[in-house]
């Protein structure tokens, strides 16, 4: 929802980043305000996941230029965990399996590190259990998944739901969903989309990375950006996504070439 004069949550200016000396992000600019839902589409390898991981603070990427402000603060000054606690959340394209670490313990530790950051008391096992049961309902997840190791042996769709469960617990200001819809059947997609919709508020924002406009039927974006070779090349409304789905990305490249 576009709200006049709402707070700028994320402001990215001319961002460039390398991995092992190879430039991946090449001058990316984007602004997201409170209440808005943005979608980024773009061909494989264009740098969408790289952008999301740079925002989350992944150590493999080196920032070589540009600025990123999160609620007015330089995002790159804080460690990944501090970004998380202050409200940045990345639902990973490929959530990791962590053998031996119980999902429930993991969720509780994560939730409590945010509580601590907010100066609140940590929740004990019982209170947390109550909370997590309530949040499970948002993604219609079976409680048995809490007893298992984090994502271990989860199907692709179950992993994605587990990511949204984490989002439901951490209640981020900026949620970046990297292909959370990929590999989901239509029922699972509806559940995940419905979950995300329940979590949108006027004071938070969502950045979705997707290849499919199908997702955008369920989570309706205010803006659709096209990323190509490490930068945003076009921005439009939801209609742009339909056009991309019908015509592919080539016409954008052509228009870009003509513009130059």
């Amino acid at each position, binding site marked *: 929802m576009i709200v006049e004069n709402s707070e700028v949550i994320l402001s990215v200016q001319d961002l460039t980043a390398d991995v092992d000396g190879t430039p991946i992000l090449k001058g990316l600019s984007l602004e997201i305000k409170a209440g808005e839902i943005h979608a980024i589409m773009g061909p494989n390898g264009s740098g969408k996941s790289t952008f999301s991981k740079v925002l*989350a*603070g*992944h*150590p*493999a990427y080196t920032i070589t230029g540009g600025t990123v402000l999160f609620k007015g603060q330089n995002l790159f000054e804080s*460690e*990944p*965990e501090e*970004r*998380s*606690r202050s409200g940045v*959340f*990345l639902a*990973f394209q490929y*959530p*990791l399996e*962590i*053998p*031996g*670490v119980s999902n429930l*313990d*993991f969720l509780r*530790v*994560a939730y409590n*590190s*945010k509580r601590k*950051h907010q100066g609140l008391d940590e929740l004990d096992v019982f209170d947390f259990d109550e909370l997590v049961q309530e949040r499970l309902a948002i993604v219609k997840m079976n409680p048995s998944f809490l007893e298992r*190791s984090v994502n271990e042996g989860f199907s692709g769709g179950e992993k994605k739901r587990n990511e949204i469960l*984490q989002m439901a617990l*951490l209640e981020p200001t900026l949620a970046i969903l990297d292909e959370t819809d990929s590999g989901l059947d239509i029922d699972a997609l509806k559940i995940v989309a419905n979950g995300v919709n329940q979590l949108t508020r006027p004071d938070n924002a969502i950045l979705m990375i997707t290849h499919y406009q199908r997702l955008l039927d369920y989570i309706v974006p205010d803006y659709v950006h096209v990323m190509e070779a490490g930068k945003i090349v076009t921005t439009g409304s939801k209609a742009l996504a339909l056009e991309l789905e019908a015509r592919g990305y080539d016409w954008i490249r052509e228009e870009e070439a003509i513009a130059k």
Partner: protein
Amino acid sequence: MTIQVSTDLDLQSVDHSAHAVYLSDLCERLDLDQLALGAETAALVQSLRDRASALAQELTLPTTRQEEWRFTDLAPLRQIKFAGSAWRQRVLANPDSEAFKNLILPEAVARLVFVNNCYMPELSAIANLPTGLAISSLAGQGGAIAGYLGQQPGAEEVFTTLNTAHLTEAAVIRVQRHQVIESPVHLLFISSPVPASRLVSPRCLVVAEPSSSLTLVEEYLTLGTGTDLINAVTEIWLQENAQVNHTRIQRHSQTDFHIGKTAVSQARDSRYTCHAVSLGGRISRHNLKVHSTGQQTETTLNGLTVAAGEQLADTHSAIGFSQPHCTSHQLHKCIVSDRARGVFNGKVSVPKAAQLTDASQLNRNLLLSPKARIDTKPQLEIVADNVKCSHGATVSQLEAEEVFYLQSRGLDYQSACNLLVEGFAVEMLEQIPSATLRRTLSQLILSQIRTEPA
């Protein structure tokens, strides 16, 4: 001079070089005081002791030139003169002290406590034992230990000999035929340091009669910081169809030395499971030797070693089969940080007669610092041709992607690493039959290790 050695004995080479340290030089003479034992037990113990003492005169401290001790240099032991018996005055301990209360396992059906190898009746709990379970110190014994005490193969090995030569006390457990003891029996060997370094020789004997079942927790620890040499020997006999679930915890201080032997004999159809956790000791070594003497025995060895700082932690296991249709499954994990070293040597011998043996062994190691080190060596000696035997070893570090995943959910670097280390260890802890002990161990492990970014 010649010494008779049995065939499976690698320890027993005698070193006549100028640097050789005789066992007799390692510690002051023990004035072997009159044992306050019944006549029959006293005679038996005395004869075992005499024989071992004579042998010990000739034995030298193993050196890294011996294959069995290649990675474990005992040189630091040479620097220390270990006191013999002068310290053996009884320690008065307070059963109501907080330090002691924290050691109690509420799940245990019985508890036998030794402090500096003195039996402590006031700290023990052996009243109202379930039927068929007998637990006592050596003094409480009738003649029931004859044929068992000191009779496991490998009794002539250096440190076993040293222990037997100093035999004054022992924990003795016997479960009668058909009796099932589900709740754990807790053996607690506590070191309470004094200013001197001492040689302490704990001993334990377990006899599980046919078709009986026992859960045992054997725990070694130091209250404070010591520089003792704790040289422990445990002998476990599983008679036909018996079952023993054995948890062995070694958590001495990081400046103590611990050499522990677990010798197990398994008669046909018996099932032995060991959960060995080794955390303490500047140098520690666990010699775990299982002798399967009958058909269809099952052996499960789970081990977890944690070493940090300058520690060296060595596990040498050996499973010897002799009959067909036996199985063994071994999983040993090491977590090593700082400049510490872990050693794992796992021997499995399957002679011609032991057809249809199913033996697996896996050693998984987690290195938490670039200077930490692991030496791992499987040692499969397979002669039988129709067997299923596998072994493997892995060495890994914490996955940077996993650490980042946890950080991205708000955990700081150290908490993320700790959670992953716990995840690595949990498999080895979750089967320990006491929630209290599992919790204690988790905490100890996390306070012991330190993770350095690679």
